[in-house]
């Protein structure tokens, strides 16, 4: 039984007075790949943002490895090994690509920027450009690369494939799988392309109106046509 790397216990959270997540509990073992699915507006982004310390939490606990990070700030969580790639990318618009990456380094030496360039050669070409001059896909690459450079032990990915060319998507999913296997990295993936997500993950949870509605393995899910129909609203997977 591998060590638990992320544990969520009875978590409720939301924005100001609007509560979005309701009593969510699950745990992810180290090195696991968890896909978080659900239709539009069901709280996937909110869940990841709450884990990253960016929304208001009402109650519940979050544990990272042996540490209780419930009360920790966003920055402290990052230093404890949490990495977050937000859905809206959040590129620093007035920083160059290189500087954007640099922020993600934490304390690592500047030379490791090359790692990012190997993963996304496109970024290297554009490294002196400002964040707001990048194309949508380039921003997506930058956002992902920036977080990965910090070598997180738990990586939260919110729709990382959005806006990327198919060929890049394939490469990226392969790279994520590689990271999870070799780098001892735990990955939570929110993705609309259900098939890609299921191909990647070894566990799946589905959110429905802020609650955890379904949990299991991808194989279970592909058999559970009813769940797919009700929670994901897609008529069968291919």
């Amino acid at each position, binding site marked *: 039984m591998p060590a638990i790397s992320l544990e969520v216990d009875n978590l409720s959270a939301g924005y100001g007075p609007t509560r979005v997540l309701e009593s969510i509990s699950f745990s992810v073992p180290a090195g696991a790949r968890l896909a978080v699915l659900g239709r539009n507006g069901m709280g996937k982004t909110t869940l990841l943002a709450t884990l*990253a*310390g*960016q929304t208001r939490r009402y109650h519940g606990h979050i544990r990272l490895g042996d540490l209780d990070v419930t009360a920790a*700030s*966003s*920055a402290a*969580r*990052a*230093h404890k090994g949490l990495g*977050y790639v*937000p859905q809206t990318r*959040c590129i*620093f*618009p*007035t*920083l160059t690509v290189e*500087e*954007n990456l*640099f*922020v*993600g380094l*934490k304390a690592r030496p500047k030379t490791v920027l090359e790692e990012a360039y190997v993963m996304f050669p496109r970024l290297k070409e554009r490294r002196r450009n*400002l*964040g*707001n001059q990048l194309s949508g896909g380039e921003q997506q690459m930058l956002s992902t690369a*920036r*977080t990965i450079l*910090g070598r997180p032990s738990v990586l939260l990915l919110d729709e990382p494939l959005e806006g990327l060319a198919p060929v890049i998507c394939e490469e990226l999913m392969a790279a994520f799988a590689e990271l999870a296997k070799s780098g001892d990295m735990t990955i939570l993936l929110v993705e609309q392309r259900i098939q890609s997500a299921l191909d990647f993950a070894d566990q799946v949870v589905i959110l429905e109106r802020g609650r955890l509605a379904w949990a299991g393995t991808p194989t279970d899910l592909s058999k559970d046509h009813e769940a797919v129909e009700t929670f994901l609203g897609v008529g069968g997977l291919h």
Partner: protein
Amino acid sequence: MQTIFSIAVDALAYGMVLFVISIGLSVTMGLMRVVNLAHGAFAMIGGYIASYAAHDLGLGYAVAVVAAVVATIIIAIPLERFLYRQIYGAPELTQVLMTIGITFCVIGIANYAMGPTLKTIPLAAALQGSADLGFRTIPVHRLFVILCGLVVAVSLWFAIDRTSFGVKLRASVDDAAMAAALGVRTEIIYAVSFAVAVGLAAFGGVVGAELLPVEPYYALRYMVTFLVVVSVGGAGSIPGALIACLLLGAIDTTGRYLMPEFGEFFFYLAVIAIICIFPRGLAGRAK
């Protein structure tokens, strides 16, 4: 010809004074995105402390300058912690309201504690008197301010553009939540930047006191001047602020020489013209 040189020297000196006094505001306003109308209040606090240290405690000029900078920063720490932290990232107008409020309070307190009269800061012997430039004389103190301006400009530019602190600061300003998610301790970054900005304000208040004398209404009287030069330069850009100060200093000085009665017109028309041509300020970057 001699007159032209003479005006040029005056323009340079005046521009540099403007620069030294307002550059701290470029840090708060351009980098931290806080419309800090209380900048002048901190400059004034610095001036009062230096005046007190030099006059009443009999300390030397250099010691008084350092004491003013340090003490102003110490005074600013609780203000940052309890007031400014509430307005980072708030809408501009909210920031305006808060910092005007702070300015009013500082004025009231200064008036109460130090009295309404003008305060001076006796200069070190070496800075008194005039230096002969050949074609004219210039107060030694002005040369000192020019030097200070250059040193401040270069070191700030380096700190912001070339150090990891600078990158983290700019990142925090662009998107504080994301910077934090990447492990940047934004509160510390902000606190340090704020301290630097306040320290610069105090420093400017002290060395600029020969031109802008210290009195309780200092904080309001020159608020517009600070705001204008910083924005014309493009908030947050050190070279921009420098160019703006020199340019506006030159326009102001020449205007005042040629047609003093239209001095204000020249200055503000120039401001309007510059902003119409460079809507983000001389060196402003796109957001």
